[in-house]
């Protein structure tokens, strides 16, 4: 199930990570990482658990600060921004969390309204309702509008989480392991949704995963995080054309050869 060609502008990097390092205590997680995300592109980041994939996208959205190096997002250097400017920039970045991170004390509708009413204060009640319903319709879950997160399945939560970020019309989407813990059919649905989002909302996206089927379906390009560095990048076939013992098991396990 190869992905259809997307319209990508390889002259414009919407995210430019330049020589970024990050340690926790005396454990260095990222070593001088370089990475670019081009406009319109779906970039898949592969890597084992605990290699720092989540740390990387948390650095990009300013939830963590790098020890050294610069992170440029949509022309702004994230690590230099004031709290207020960072807040503004974040509205252009959608973040889909691994556990969906729905507010479990609120209904689906309230979850979706939350970012909307707090960032666009002059919307009327009717406009808010319309936005919420449109976005929910887009992820195919309009019928869940009055449910609580605890009543939803893992796949539904994931969709609602994605819908909640789409409601602010982000330019960039960051997906943290979007298919982790889901059954194969739901995985297919989520992958399709990721591609639909790219097309419909014209987003540039980073998709973190170790699910190669997902990677194959959604990636325009892939990079692989090995021991805190990006050592391999390219199309699916290029990444796995190697005898590197750190890379081969990914392929072997996923496609049982």
């Amino acid at each position: 199930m190869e992905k259809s060609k997307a319209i990508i502008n390889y002259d414009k990097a919407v995210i430019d990570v330049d020589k970024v390092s990050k340690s926790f205590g005396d454990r260095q997680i990222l070593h001088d990482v370089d990475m670019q995300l081009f406009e319109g592109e779906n970039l898949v980041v592969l890597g084992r658990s605990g290699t720092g994939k989540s740390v990387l996208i948390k650095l990009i959205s300013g939830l963590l600060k790098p020890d050294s190096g610069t992170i440029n997002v949509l022309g702004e250097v994230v690590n230099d921004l004031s709290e207020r400017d960072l807040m503004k920039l974040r509205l252009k970045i959608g973040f889909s969390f691994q556990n969906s991170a729905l507010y479990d004390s609120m209904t689906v509708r309230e979850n979706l309204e939350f970012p909307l009413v707090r960032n666009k204060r002059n919307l009327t009640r009717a406009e808010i309702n319309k936005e919420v319903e449109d976005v929910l319709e887009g992820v195919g879950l309009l019928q869940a509008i009055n449910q609580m997160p605890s009543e939803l399945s893992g796949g539904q939560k994931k969709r609602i989480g994605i819908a909640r970020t789409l409601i602010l019309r982000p330019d960039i989407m960051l997906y943290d392991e979007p298919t982790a813990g889901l059954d194969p059919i739901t995985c297919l649905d989520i992958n399709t949704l990721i591609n639909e989002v790219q097309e419909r909302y014209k987003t540039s996206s980073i998709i973190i995963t170790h699910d190669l089927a997902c990677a194959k379906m959604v990636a325009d390009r892939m990079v692989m995080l090995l021991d805190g560095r990006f050592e391999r990048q390219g199309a699916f076939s290029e990444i796995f054309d190697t005898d590197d013992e750190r890379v081969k098991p990914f392929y072997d396990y996923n496609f049982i050869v």
Partner: protein
Amino acid sequence: MGRKINNLLLEFARLHRFLMRFFREVVSPPFEFKEIIRQCYEVGWKSFPLISLTGFIVGFVFTKQSRPSLEEFGATSWLPALISIAIVRALAPLVTALIASGKVGSQIGAELSSMNVTEQIDAMEVSGTNPFKFLIVSRIVATTLMIPVLCFYVAGIGLFGGYLSITSKDDLSLLSFFTQVFESIQMIDLFAMVLRAVVFGFTIGFASCYVGYYSSKGTEGVGIAANSAVVASMFIVFIEELLIVQLLGFITPLIS
């Protein structure tokens, strides 16, 4: 050993930053009025039934137990004065604080740490809402405002419990009971009660929020946070009670 001391110092530094951040953000706009009101309702309402029962029982039982000592001197008519002073000066703020530590503290600790574990706090932060202001400031403000309100309520219901205990033996009208109560309570006593309640309320909110916000990731962190929130709140409340008693012992003679 050196490592332990180092960790302790780091913890204090973090505690200090948390405290400073609270005072900075509580006075700087935008204010989360709606969330503060919602939290006030939560704090007030959650502990209301338990606090009503406890306040009543404490007043009733305390009065019943005090009666024999006064009877020996034929001084049972002093009961209203005695219980009003005991309730306003010590029992009401302490009972309110302990019940609220249990009910509200564990609730806040569990709520915040589960939001932390499931990345809801991060989610809030990346979608343009300051989670410190929305979650922490609103809760601390709510407990600081509501514990004094609950404390007055406990004092009232405790006195009522005392009144019922007295009338089970003596004839005393509610009016003359409360006349005696208000004659024996001084301004300084009311001031001390409010002071205690405000300090305790702030403590419960602050300690529970701190524990929940910095809970370890992982599901077992939620239980630990709920538990530590209660223990920390109660522990600090007792220490503060000791300090406030000393402080009042020092300033009361200066005023009267």
